[in-house]
């Protein structure tokens, strides 16, 4: 929810605002770790493809919004496409090639 909320607020922020500075920058690593822990917990229940796709899409959207100042429809579509590509590539390599029984 926090990630989605963050994405939403960043998407609404005007481009001129720029990235966050000062001690707030430590919030990004903290939020990322927290979301990774949640991802690890939901992984067995949701399964690798859905959990990874959700995690990647959310974070790429949030970070693209942070880095570009605002999210456009094009960058949002590219972010989701990138998330699909990352999930698919890792799934193919580890499940198909390395034969790891992913959850």
């Amino acid at each position, binding site marked *: 929810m926090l990630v989605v909320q963050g994405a939403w607020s960043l998407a609404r922020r005007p481009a001129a605002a720029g*990235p*966050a500075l000062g001690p707030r*920058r*430590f919030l*990004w*690593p903290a939020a*990322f*770790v927290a979301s*990774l*822990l949640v*991802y*690890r917990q939901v*992984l*067995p229940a949701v399964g*690798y493809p859905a959990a*990874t796709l959700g*995690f*990647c899409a959310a*974070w*790429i959207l*949030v*970070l*693209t919004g*942070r*880095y570009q100042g605002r999210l456009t429809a094009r960058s949002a579509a590219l*972010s989701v496409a*990138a*998330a699909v590509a*990352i*999930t698919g590539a*890792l799934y193919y*390599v*580890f499940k198909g*090639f*390395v*034969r*790891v*029984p*992913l*959850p």
Partner: protein
Amino acid sequence: MFTDVLGALAHILTNPTSLGLSVAGVLVGIVFGALPGISSTMSLAVLMPLTFRLNATDAMMFLMAVFNASVYGGSISAILVNIPGTPGSIATQLDGHPMAKQGRAGEALGYVTLASGFGGILGLLVFMTIAPLVASVGLSFQSPEFTGLALLGLASLSAALPGAAYKGILVGILGLLLSTIGLDPLTNVLRFDFGSKDLAAGLSIIPMAVGIFGLAEVLNGLEAGPARMEVVRTISRVIPPWAEVKRTIPAALRGSLVGIIVGIIPAAGSAIGVVFAYLQEKRLSAHPERFGTGIPEGIVAPESSNNAEIGGDLIPTMSLGIPGDGITAVLMGALLVQGLRPGPLMFKEHPDFVAAVYVALGIAIVLTTAFGLLGARLFAKVLAVPQPILLCAIAMLCVVGSYAANNSLFDVGAMIGFGVLGYLMQKLGFPVVPLVFGLILGPMLEENVRRTLVVSDGSWLIYVQRPISVTLLGLSVLTAAYPAFLEYRARRRSAP
């Protein structure tokens, strides 16, 4: 040895899987190395899980290719963006980027590629010559000598962070303590497992390496925010004129020599070697004032040193089982996963595997040079990958890689924990490499100390009664004390 190398070469060249893995490793290694913020150690740590289901030779084909190519790849961003892709490319940018800004980016990439290949081959030849000799001396070692070796490796950690010798030692001790989790190697009694069956087997090197080298860097990237990069996009002819190349051969030779020597010294780090090679070349030059303006010698000396260091690094790692630096510590972890413990016995019991390592590195160097010359323009394009995609892809690679070690979500949790630990350590100014050293050398140290004491009926005097043992212990004391002495002297001199 020559027959073993020929046999390994014939086997690998006729095996499409091995060759394919080497090609893949080179391509991925160059791309990872070229991306700013992804070090060679991180590249190897996050890609190592891909080799778990491979046989040892194929795993080495891939890992050696990633190792060599990522070391080379760091120079691409150093030249085109003025940001070193890896710490070992820190000196390459000093002349590489100015040359690129003069419209000679292709030429700069060409010098880097040729110097990397030259240094890599020299390093390999020294590795092939010296490692068997060191290993044959090592074969006469017994428990007291192995104790001395492990202590020497740990003592070298005092040099891990210049100016703060104690920090390296402290982190190394933390690694040693972590290595005691799990089954006691001599009595098989469980220690510090807190009733958890996941801890009964001890902490695996994989989640630790992936966490502190991979995830910690992702967290650093998230904290730093967007990097402003001004990329030189025009890449002219890549192969420099032969007359110019010939003129830089002495610089490449001197740089390679520095790299090999620095590589052999455990925990010295690639940045030290390249800076030393650059400064040495500048000192010897008839025109030192031209350094920093984009001259070939300023690129060739550090870059040949950077890749020659690989061979130097591998000497203590393979022949004595003491990792030369962070990246060889990760490589050693990959070998342990394969059930192979580097050290003198490996040269006696698995000469075919040692020969395969030589061949794997040789093929990696040749392929890196070829791909570097042919695909420089293509590899430069990876600098356009948006950072959010990169950070997420690496984080997910860390998760799947640590899971793949034992198909365990506990390892994923451990990786996240070590990632946070590595990140916090960097924020507090502590080096992270000693943690891996401690985890690798811990079992070796513990087992050999206890074996020695069993043999000597509990008498510690055995360590000073054997010449090699006492020499190694003396060297350990000197190695640990020397950086501290330098710091003390510097403080006294700067005091009013």
